[in-house]
């Protein structure tokens, strides 16, 4: 199940409370948890350093088989261990607050004996500050507590053995007979005293948390094909919505590698403008009005700090500072460096303006008004696009090679100005510079049509003057750069299938990107291809591809960013918002087309 202490990435399930996310392995070990928020330093990081990262193991002491699932339409995980002596079921959740005195964050693990008698053990090694901070372990009122500076956790247990504290760890053994129930809770404090929860209160919060997730999932508006996958994707996405601000994290992890043993390891615990239009589109399609409104206003608030320019990404609290540095951790299966922060924050990526205007257009079309101040800022952004679109940039894939004139970036600049014109005509933003926006949009289109098209490939190309291909060109179909059934876009779809796709797997691009090594197939591109096929009228092909892609999810319905086409192994940060967003939008597009 584990190699050198590392579980496969697809062996994890995610649980969370809208503020942070924990990853639970099939063997019951929680190997990733940042506290108090998902972009805070890690406390459990065994996934990035099996020896020193810290984990919360809970498993039978004898050999076992595992089955697991999410409780239907929830983010509450149920893992069933079957041993020679009996069967035990573990229910894991980060509970949602109930308005009473309770922990700042609470991880609850309920253990039920289903048959026979099973010897169990649990062991938690908290490593605050990704292991950089000195951790003290002791007891308060008999409760085991680990603390470091202004952070602390208490491990409360009932019928789960007599915990001992030693060598920076808290652990116990116990036997669970059929019908018996044990409970473990991790209570979290940050800059405040700990709350030691009562057993009944924690158990009640666990029940209410499952009910709350079920209530949320039942409100999702989708009855088309692959409903289970769509609802699971919505639930995964909801885990990544940072409740205090409404921002959506790209993923809850950092530095899960795009290549095992390689250096393509990035911190995704930020909100990317690149994802904004996909996010709002998915929220609106699924009837998540509150999330859509919260996200749009967070985007407008965050981007106000850098107006009229946009940053590639923002912190979940809307901050702009995300300097990149490395941590002294071994890395997932030796994949170093382990990075926190993201150097892409300082790149020029022109495509993000297209995503901004697509987001604003979707928001306005949904009947939610754009106020005068935001309208004014959007008009300023459109003016800026007129000035900066002729520049070379780093593109959607954040290449670390020299900037070039990426075709997709230019297409998205056209989408931005076209969106600005339509918003102005609808009275949503000031119309003073509409003529200029139209003129520049026409200039962009001329550039793309003359400099970014290859007669030899019958396709748009990766950047002006090249003969390389790029799956992000499919976004030209998705964002309405041209007629999805026209020759040029259908030719591009065909070229991407021909040269970048292998079965259901699609590579991002051909050519180099300034980083050594290679990566796997990029799952969002596969879903973009399915959506492009549906929009260009090739519904049967789209459905066939979707069937294959839905089967690629792990046992609990989650996806990473990438997949190794040869082994099927998940790669990259996990679970990945962009993949789940792409799944939702592709499924809806297929459903619209009658699939």
């Amino acid at each position: 199940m584990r190699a050198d202490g590392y579980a496969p990435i697809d062996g994890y399930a995610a649980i969370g409370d809208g503020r942070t996310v924990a990853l639970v392995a099939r063997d019951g070990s929680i190997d990733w948890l940042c506290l108090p928020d998902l972009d805070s330093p890690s406390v459990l990081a065994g996934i990035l350093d099996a020896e020193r990262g810290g984990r919360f193991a809970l498993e039978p002491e004898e050999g076992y088989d595992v089955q697991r699932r999410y409780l239907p339409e929830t983010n509450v995980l149920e893992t069933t261990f079957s041993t020679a002596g009996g069967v035990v079921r573990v229910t894991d959740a980060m509970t949602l607050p109930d308005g009473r005195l309770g922990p700042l964050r609470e991880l609850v693990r309920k253990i039920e004996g289903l048959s026979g008698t099973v010897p169990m053990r649990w062991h938690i090694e908290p490593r605050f500050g990704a292991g950089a901070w000195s951790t003290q372990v002791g007891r308060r009122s008999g409760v085991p507590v680990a603390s470091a500076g202004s952070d602390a956790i208490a491990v409360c247990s009932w019928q789960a053995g007599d915990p001992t504290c030693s060598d920076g760890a808290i652990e116990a053994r116990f036997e669970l007979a059929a019908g018996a129930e044990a409970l473990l809770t991790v209570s979290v404090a940050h800059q405040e005293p700990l709350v030691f929860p009562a057993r009944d209160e924690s158990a009640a919060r666990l029940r209410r948390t499952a009910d709350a997730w079920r209530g949320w999932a039942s409100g999702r508006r989708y009855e088309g094909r692959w409903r289970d996958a769509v609802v699971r994707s919505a639930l995964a996405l909801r885990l990544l919505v940072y409740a205090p601000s409404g921002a959506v994290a790209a993923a809850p992890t950092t530095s899960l590698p795009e290549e095992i043993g390689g250096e393509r390891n990035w911190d995704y615990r930020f909100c990317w403008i690149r994802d904004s239009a996909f996010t709002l589109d998915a929220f609106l399609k699924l009837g998540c009005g509150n999330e859509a409104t919260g996200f749009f206003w967070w985007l407008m608030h965050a981007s106000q700090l850098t107006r009229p320019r946009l940053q590639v990404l923002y912190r979940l609290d809307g901050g702009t500072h995300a300097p990149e540095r490395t941590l002294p951790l071994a890395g997932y299966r030796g994949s170093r460096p382990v990075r926190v922060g993201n150097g892409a924050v300082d790149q020029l990526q022109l495509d993000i303006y297209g995503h901004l205007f697509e987001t604003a257009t979707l928001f306005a079309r949904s009947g939610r008004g754009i106020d005068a101040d935001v309208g004014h800022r959007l008009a300023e952004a459109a003016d800026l696009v007129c000035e900066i679109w002729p520049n070379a940039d780093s593109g959607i894939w954040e290449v670390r090679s020299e900037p070039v004139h990426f075709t997709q970036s230019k297409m998205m600049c056209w989408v931005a100005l076209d969106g600005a014109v339509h918003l102005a005509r609808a009275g949503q933003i000031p119309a003073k510079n509409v003529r200029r926006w139209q003129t520049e949009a026409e200039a962009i289109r001329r550039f793309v049509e003359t400099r970014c098209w290859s007669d030899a490939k019958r396709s748009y190309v990766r950047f002006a003057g090249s003969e390389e291909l790029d799956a992000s060109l499919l976004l030209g179909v998705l964002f309405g750069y041209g007629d999805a059934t026209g020759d040029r876009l259908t030719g591009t779809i065909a070229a991407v299938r021909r040269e970048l796709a292998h079965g259901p797997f699609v590579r991002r691009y051909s050519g180099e990107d300034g980083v050594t090594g290679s990566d796997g197939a990029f799952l969002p591109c596969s879903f973009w291809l399915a959506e492009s096929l549906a929009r260009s009228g090739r519904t049967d092909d789209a459905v066939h591809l979707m069937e294959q892609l839905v089967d690629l999810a792990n046992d609990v319905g989650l996806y990473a960013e990438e997949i190794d086409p040869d082994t099927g192994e998940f790669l990259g940060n996990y679970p990945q918002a962009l993949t789940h967003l792409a799944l939702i939008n592709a499924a809806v597009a297929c459903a619209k087309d009658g699939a």
Partner: protein
Amino acid sequence: MSVWGALAGGFVGTLVLTTSLRAASELRLTRIDLPFLLGTAVTAALIYFAVFSALGRDGWLLGTLFGLAHGLFTGTALVNILLPVVHPRMGTPLSSIDSHAVLEPPGFLMLNYGRSTPFVSLAAHAAYGALVGGFTALAS
């Protein structure tokens, strides 16, 4: 000697006390929760004034000594003996989490809230006392 000077010192001292404790929390030095202390900080200035009056002396140095004594009292008797009496959810060695949730007890000198907590608390209280004593003297 003016009570208004003591109150002004108490007001400014409370600002300094709360700001420094909050900053210490951000600097990862302590997990003290401020609401526990605000009320005592405001009313303490009047007690300081009463003692200044009884002694017939005031000043920042005497205030600093009072602040240190105040900090010691807070870290020992106040939070460990008096606070559990008025705060039903404050944990004690006798409390149990079987029936309802309780707050982590602060421990001697509030060491449970971080090893640096006694130093942070005493320094903040000393600054508070110095301001109350200084303002009282200024208003005399």
